[in-house]
């Protein structure tokens, strides 16, 4: 006997997606009027900076880690990568503080906060491996100093900061993949739940389902 359509995994996923994240939520053309502060800009600014990081990173990856030392275009591309990382963190930290002071985890949004906070931690790891693969004096220094921290808790047995090959692969493949997935899930959660309402919002503004 074949499985009824509504019990199929694909059908379940489709109906769950349609129920929780219809296209109107995914690509809205209006939003609550209280979303008016400049603080709201920093979420999308963080994603924009991530876009510039990935684009410049792809160019650097095609040419190899030592290219930018000897090429003017390479040096310029590396500069774009460097400054977009600086902006990414500045925007993300402001976004994070903003969401903290909004208590943005209210209303079943705990997982949205958690994915964002984990993305912040993964971003630090991704940037750190980037500093290790610069193939310049800075990366020599950082790898020598940082090994002690990782070795001291046993992590250094597998995560070898002095191993350029390992750090390069983690920096350009594994960690960006994790960060990309976390960012996507985070954004989809924001779209699904909507922007958190103001603390002490007027009851009439929020319709509680009976």
């Amino acid at each position, binding site marked *: 006997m074949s499985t009824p359509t509504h019990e199929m995994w694909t059908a379940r996923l489709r109906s769950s997606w349609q129920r929780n994240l219809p296209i109107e939520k995914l*690509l809205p053309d*209006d*939003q609550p009027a*209280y979303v*008016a*502060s400049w603080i709201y800009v920093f979420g999308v*600014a963080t994603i*924009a*900076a991530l876009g*510039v990081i990935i684009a410049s990173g792809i160019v650097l990856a095609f040419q190899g880690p030592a290219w*930018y030392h000897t090429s003017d275009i390479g*040096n*310029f591309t*590396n*500069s*774009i990568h*460097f*400054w*977009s990382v*600086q*902006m990414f963190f500045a925007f993300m*930290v402001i976004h994070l503080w903003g969401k*903290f*002071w909004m208590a943005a*985890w209210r*209303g*079943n*949004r705990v997982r949205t906060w958690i994915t964002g*906070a984990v993305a912040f*931690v993964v971003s*630090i790891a991704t*940037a*750190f491996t980037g500093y290790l693969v*610069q193939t*310049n*004096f*800075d990366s*020599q*220094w950082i790898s*020598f*100093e940082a*090994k002690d*921290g990782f*070795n*001291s808790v*046993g992590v*250094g047995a597998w995560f070898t900061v*002095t191993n350029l*090959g*390992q750090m390069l692969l983690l920096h350009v493949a594994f960690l960006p993949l994790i960060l990309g997935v976390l960012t996507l899930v985070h954004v989809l959660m924001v779209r699904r*739940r909507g922007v958190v*309402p*103001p603390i002490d*919002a*007027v009851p*009439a*503004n*929020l*319709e*509680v389902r009976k």
Partner: protein
Amino acid sequence: MSRSSKAKEEFDAAPWQGKTRKYDIIKEGTVALLVVAILTVALSLLLGSPDDTPLTFKGWATTNSDNFYATAVSELAGTSGTATYGPPYNSAADGLNVGPLWLQKWAGVSRPIDTVNDFVIAPLSTQVMSVEIASALATWKAAAQTEQNTWATNYDSAIAKVEGKLSAVPAGNYGPVPALAQGLTDMAKAGGLDAALLSQGGFFQTDNTKQILFFGDGSYLDDAGTAANLQGGTWGMMNETGRYPGQAWLWLYSFWYQIPPFNNEESKPIGANADAYIMVLMGALSLGLILIPLIPGVKTLPMRIPIHRGIWRQYYEENGIKRRKY
């Protein structure tokens, strides 16, 4: 969850029924991307980015030959930082601990390094060498390990006694050690050691661990780090070479290294194991950040400190909502 907090959760999760305004999400994203792209291009054109040339063994052996030579001897004698490090490189020490947790020791020796052979004998053996070096190598290899230790330790102690001033080292039972150290110094000066340490006689190699560790055993790397203001005790973890911003997001990690007991190696157990304690502390704090919505006292801070009144000022004013006490 109490009934009132459950009701509050449901209230905050409910669909918005109040005033809305037009919102073009695609336009917002495109404009943000353009603005950030323009800003990064402008900063890149104006300021560039840091890129200090890496140090080399040639540079070390040329500018501070005695220090390189003495470090080579310490590698043979087993007294260098790497030789006495412990896991994951060797079993010479247990490593750091956090109370009863000896994580470094338990993780084991996963990246074995034998400073005698990996740093000195193997690189020297890859070279076309003089009769003197060939003879020194042959003597070293033919000797028993105890004899090798005696030669190297005698010479290492003699160098330490005269504080690294090689010309003041008295004659003694050093075997072929001076010749080996001189051979490695000459090899480094000629520029042959960087690649030999990396390749270890092989072809493909992407692991720079041996080069980095050997560098750290002498004073050359450390001096360069001090000159660039990169030392951990002076917030170096979040600094960058030149006048560029570094990893400022590591400020909290760096902070612990500036205060007692973490910044005092003599202070037991925390200062002596600062790296491990700080790593565990930062792990716990990171977990705390992730789980803020579940931590009593912290999760209600935003309600008690009215920064949200500024964020939603317009909404509160339009609806005449006064601040509520929590």
